Structures are given as C-alpha cells and as structure tokens.
C-alpha cells in the first residue's frame, strides 16, 4: 500500500517546545524540547575521514555522470521500525562504503547516491549535503532552446560546474566553546543556533539520546559566510522578559509568573527565528521510510530577506522528527533568484530582462556579477561591458 508522501509546506516545529537560550560570546543556542518521545525512529552518526568525497548522483558509482563533490566528515544513518516498536540504534558501526582512492596526497572517497538504503530498515544519507545538492541542482539544466545569445559552452554543458562555497563550523569564532559549555536538557532533541542573534541553523533529531551523540556535530557542518563575519564582530543582545509584578502575592502566583517567563522566552525565540518558522517552503521528496518522509526544501525565494534550504523527516501525522537547515548568503540567494527568473522565461534573455525591469546589457552584467558570465557569448559580453563603461 503506498502512502501519500507528507511534504511540508512550512516549518512549524510541530511536537516541539522552545526553551530559554544559553549564550556564550556571540553565540546563542536555543534548546528544542520534545515531551512525547517515540523511539521508532533513530538517527546515528557515521564518521568518514577522507579529504574529499565524490557522490554519484545518477547511474553507476564509478561511471561518468553527474557528481557531487565536497568535504563530508560524517553521514547519518536512519533506522526505523514500522509498527511503532523501538528501532535499533546502530551507532557508528564501521561499514566499508563506496570506494576509496588516493590521488597524490589527497584521499578521495566515492559514494553511491546521497541517500542510500543499506538494509531493510536502514538508510544512510549525508546531512546538509542532501539539501545543498538539491539547491545546486535547482534550475541546473540551462537553456533548452539554442538561443543565439548563449555561448557554445552553455549550450553544450549547461551550468556545469555549479558550485557554492561555505564556511566550516569550526571557523565560526566561539562556536566550539559555546557548544562545550552548553548544558543539554534532559528532553532536548534539537537547537536553534543564532550567531550574533541572526539565525544560523535549526537542527532537530528524533530522540534525546541521539541528540547527545550528535550535539558536537554542529561543529562539522557548514555555514554561510555571513555567520562567519557575525561571529567575528558580533555580540548578543541582553534580553529580559517583562512580567507584571503587581499581581504576585504568594508562592503560587510566583510559580505562575515563572511559567509565564519560560513561555515568553520560548515565544520570543520563535519570533527571532521567524524568517524560517512559519515561512512557506517548497519541498521535494527524497525517500519514504515507513511512516516517515525524508525531503529537502527551500524557502520561497525573496531577495532582501533570509532564505534557508534544508532537509526534514516528517511523520505521517505531521510531527517534525528531523530537521537541518542552512542559511543562504546574499550572493547565493541572488544567484538562485537569477536562475529561477531565467528558467521561468525559458532562458530567453530579453524576456527575462523585461520581467526584471532591466535592459539586456544590465541583465548580462548581473549575470556576470553572479559568476554566470561564461554562459553568454563573447560579443554580447563585450557589448555589455562597453555599455557599462559609458555610464
């Protein structure tokens, strides 16, 4: 019996509570608590130690095809049970995966697929890289019709190679120390990570035990360069919820005021993450595992606001079991926005320029600034440069 895949339409942290944050330097970590933990989905970590990982996205592992290349220090192994019984948590068992090659001084690991089923109820996927691969392949193909404005290279190869860069978590100043001194709640299953009060990432796992094992993996993730600069120069603001003290006249009312304080903290942190929580997203299914759907998503693209990409696992009743997000930098947002506009207009430069209220030369300059200049043929490119200089 095939179940309809439950694709999320917005990130709403169903089944989770937000607790007061802990601050260290410029890093604010907000705990996410799950009261009703069911153990039928478990996530465990598998470490890799190669310098570069090449993932074959289609076809055979060692055959030519589209590949995703990055530094992948760890993968996650999902194990689930169908009937609601507790699932087995496998731990970081060493399994030989893919193929290992040595290219001079660099060790390379070749893997098959971003999300691969390894056993009956076991799936291995590469966290955050799953979302990033989806992001990079958005509007990836390039022009279908051989418009004359495009260079021969664009018509032959499309956008290859499509690449983006990001900063490792270790390079964000203070993140390691903040994670070290963080006190993990007993029912904590996730965090909202803020650098200088800007949302860097949201991370949720199914059970508190899984979270304790994965807490330090936040250092191994990658983040946008904005957060690197925020970590260097930023600080956190002092926050204090305001409670009406006039009504407090007994220990019981003091208790109530304290509970109100906690819920105010939770609400405020939810508000701080408002550009992610409650925002509409478009999601694509990656894998269906029993009652759970693994999917990747991107928020609706809006320039001048935060945009996030990520991956999620959702239970069939809508509860969020796993979440991991990445905040796009301005440049990355601009790039994908331009690509989406081009794709929407069939890659016809004039039509796109008109829709964006630019001249064709201006559009070509925008493409060049976004590092897509190689798509346009040389004559037009020179014409656009000359036009630009005249202004």
């Amino acid at each position, binding site marked *: 019996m095939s179940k309809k895949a439950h694709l999320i339409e917005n990130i709403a942290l169903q089944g989770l509570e937000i607790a007061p944050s802990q601050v260290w330097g410029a890093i604010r970590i907000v705990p996410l608590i799950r009261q009703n933990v069911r153990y039928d989905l478990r996530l465990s970590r598998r470490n890799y130690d190669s310098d570069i990982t090449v993932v074959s996205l289609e076809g055979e592992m060692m055959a030519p095809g589209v590949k995703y290349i990055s530094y992948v220090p760890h993968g996650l192994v999902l194990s689930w049970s169908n009937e609601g019984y507790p699932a087995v948590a496998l731990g970081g068992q060493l399994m030989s995966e893919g193929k290992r090659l040595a290219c001079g001084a660099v060790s390379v690991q070749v893997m098959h697929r971003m999300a691969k089923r390894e056993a009956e109820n076991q799936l291995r996927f590469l966290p955050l890289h799953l979302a990033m691969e989806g992001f990079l392949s958005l509007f990836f193909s390039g022009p279908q019709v051989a418009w004359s404005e495009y260079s021969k290279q664009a018509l032959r190869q499309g956008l290859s190679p499509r690449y983006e860069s990001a900063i490792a978590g270790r390079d964000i100043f203070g993140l390691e120390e903040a994670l070290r001194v963080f006190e993990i709640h007993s029912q904590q299953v996730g965090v909202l990570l803020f650098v200088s009060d800007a949302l860097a990432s949201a991370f949720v796992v199914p059970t508190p035990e899984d979270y304790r094992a994965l807490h330090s993996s936040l250092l191994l993730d990658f983040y946008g360069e904005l957060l690197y600069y925020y970590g260097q120069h930023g600080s956190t603001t002092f926050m204090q919820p305001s409670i009406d003290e006039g009504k407090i006249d007994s220990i019981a009312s003091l208790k109530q005021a304290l509970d109100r*304080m906690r819920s105010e903290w939770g609400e405020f942190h939810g508000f701080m993450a408002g550009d992610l929580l409650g925002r509409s997203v478009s999601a694509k299914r990656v894998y269906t595992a029993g009652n759970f759907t693994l999917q990747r998503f991107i928020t609706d693209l809006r320039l001048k606001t935060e945009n996030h990409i990520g991956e999620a696992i959702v239970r069939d009743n809508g509860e969020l079991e796993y979440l991991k997000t990445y905040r796009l930098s301005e440049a990355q947002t601009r790039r994908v926005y331009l690509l989406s506009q081009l794709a929407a207009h069939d890659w016809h430069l004039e039509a796109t320029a008109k829709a964006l209220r630019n001249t064709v030369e201006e559009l070509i300059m925008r493409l060049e600034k976004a590092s897509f200049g190689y798509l346009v043929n040389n004559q037009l490119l020179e014409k656009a440069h000359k036009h630009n200089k005249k202004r």
Partner: protein
Amino acid sequence: MDHHWKSRVEQVAQEDLVMFINACLACTGQREFYDDAYGQKVSLDFLHDYILGNYRLLYARSLAAGINHFNQSQIILKLLATGKETLPEHRQEEGALIAATLKALPPQRAFKLLQQLRQQRINNRRARAIAKEYLASRTERLAFDAVKYRSKIRSIAVHIHLKLEGELGNFLFGNWKKSFQTELFEKFRQGYYSANAIYNLPFTVAEGLAIKHNIPREVFLSRIESQMTITEKLRLQQSGKRVGKEIEVDFHRLPLTRLAMYVLSLSLQERQQQYDSLHSALLQSAFSALRRSPMQLGRVAAVLDCSYSSFGSSEKRRRPLGVALAVYYLLSTASKEFHCFWTSPVDNPLQVIPKGQTNLATPLLEALSWNPELVVIISDGWENDPPDGAAFVLRLYRTKLDPTRQTGIVHCNPVFNADDFSLRAISPLIPTVGLRDAEDLPTMLNFARFAEGSAPLEELEKYLAAKAQKMLAE
C-alpha cells in the same frame, strides 16, 4: 559631606575585603568549567596585590578567616616579600600570624612555600627567621621530613644559609658515611642500596626508590600497603584495581568533601553495589566534621546544583558537585529537619551525576514553599532555565512575600569568576560566600552577614581581629 565621604570610603573597603575573602575561599588558580587557569591566576594575583597595597593589616588578618591553603600561601609570600611596608606597631602580629599559619598548613605545602622564597627572590632577615623558626618547630619530625621532602629542605637550607645540625646536614648533602645513627636516615640509606629494604620507608619515598630498583608495580603495591596514609590508599584505589590489588580504605576516616568526591568518581553501578558502606561512611564523616566545628540548625532546606557545569574541569573534577553532595550530608546531620531540592530530579543522592540545565528557580520555589528557617543554595550561579529566574524569585520573595527576613537565604558558590573578580551571585539581595570544602560551612554561614553588605566595616574588622586572636592563641 565629610561624613558621607568617610562612610562611602568605608563601604568600599568593606566591599573590597568581602570580595577578597570570598575569592580566597573558592579560588585555587585552577581551570574551572567556564574559565581557564591562566585567567584565574591573573585575576587572583591582582586581587592579592590590590588588597595588600591598600589594606595591609586586614590582608594579614585574613590568614585567620578560614581561607584555603593556596591563598594562605600566596598571602604569606606576598607579606614576606614586602616586609618593608609593615607599620611598626603591626610587625609582631604579622609575624605571629605568618608563623601560626605555617604551623597549621600541611607540611608539604609549608615546605613548598618556603622553597618558593628562593624562586621569588625573597631574601630578607624576617623571611630567613621565619623559615628557621618553622624548621625548628618541626623538632623530632624533622628527620621524617628530611627523608620525605629531601630536595625541599635542602633548597630551603641553602637559601636561608642555615647550618644543619648533626647527621641531618650529612644526610641531605650526600655526605654519607658507613651508617647513620638516626633510624630513618639509616633505613633510607639501606633502601637506596637494597631493593628489599624500601618497605620500611613512607610510601612516596619508597615509590621513587622502587623505580630506581626496577621493582614491578604489583609487587611493590602489595608489599607497601602498611606504609600508606589513608589519602594515599584512596588515591591508589583505581591503580590498585588495575594491577589486581584490593587496597582497603577506612572510608569514614576521610574528610567529608574528599570522600564525597571519591564517591562521585565511581561509576553508578559501583555506587549502587557499595551503597551501604559509602552512605554510612559519609554520615560518619559528617558527624566528625560537626564535632570539630559544631553547628546546630533547625528547619533547613538545601537547593543543590547538579547541572552539567557542576562537573568543574579536568583540574577540579566534579568539585562543585562534590561540595553539593558533602553539604547534603552535613546539613542532614546538623539540622533538626532537612529537605533537599536538586536542579534535576534525583531519587538517590549517591546516584547524582552532573547532567542537565541549571534550573534554580523551580527548586528554590519548592524550598521556599516548604517554609524553612534557612535556605542554603550551592551553585556556581550560571543560571539558564530561565536566565535570572532565581534572581526574579528572590527579588519578589524578599521585597513582597518576606520583607522581614523570616527565612534566611545564603548562596554558597564553589567557583570563582576570573572576569569580574567575583563569585557569580544569583541575586544582590542575598549574600554570596565562597565554599571550597563543605566542612567550612559553619564558618561561612557566620561570614555570610558581611557578604550581604549591611554590616559596617568596623564589624568586619572586629570579626577578623577576633579570628586572628583565636588563631594566635592556639
């Protein structure tokens, strides 16, 4: 105007001294959970220099305030280094306090301190006289000290130009004849040359000679057991187990906090298996501690922090949690009625581990609604669930629900914050005092009234003077 200025000056002096004494109670210059060792040492050093320069007499008298050994050594060294600045009328008291403190310190610390005289280039008549007097005060035990702390006494004697009498000089400076008259020296001489003879010597001495003679560890440990002190036996529990040797320790003879920290170093399973012996040992140790400094309390509630930060650091492993566990036992024996509230629910105090967030507000509220006479909070003060929750509770409780101070509330903090030279306070409305060992709790509760800030400087001066007199009279 003048009067206002004078009272402000006094207030500043009182605050400075309380800050200094609190720091000296809790800080030992080691790494803490949130701070590193370098920051701790630098801050503490600054505090010492500041108080030394501005309040010399009170600085000297704080030797008697019950501060920890590390800071007592620091004070003595700094006083000896700056002897010129002592006012003539205080010279005798200062010298007497230094001598009395040295006598009260454990001998290894006293010898290390005197050895530091050379390293810190402290070379004046008073320092030499004090070192000479200390060595003389050791009388018959000096032979034992010479065997156990050979290098220290040697370097002290060299630095103060002391002529060592009789065989002591020959023994220390390698001028060994065929045999010694003094029994211990002879035993050492024999142990130096023969592997079998080392078992007549104290444990640490024999340990070094065993390595010299290449004796395997298990053989050594099995034969040396009778020569070990109780703390050495405790320290070697785990390494003894590793070589298959069970070392018997009389747990109830150990000091309370040290025993509590030992219990916490065992795994949960081991604690469960030895529950009866550990529990009774802790109770007995608490009774002995109370016999030494008696304390009679009525209805007492304790709010204890078992959050992750009570793990301390690798240099002070589990000390904040150990202090909390020790205070639990101390207060439960000293009070008529006692109830304990932890930051995370704990069903059995011996099964406590440093885990979870710091939620002080909820247990504090539960403690206050139990209507105690005294609430003792043991925590490092870094609250996060919610931040400033306990401060909010305390403020409203003190201003609205209990303005006449029917319930006494004291915060004891085992951790020193290097950044602002203070112990992190939960609220300005309750006193915060430093606490290194739970056995010092009676003294700290007395000191708490100064930490509140309401007592004037005179009272603090009288308190310190009384303590100094008591120390000199012993």
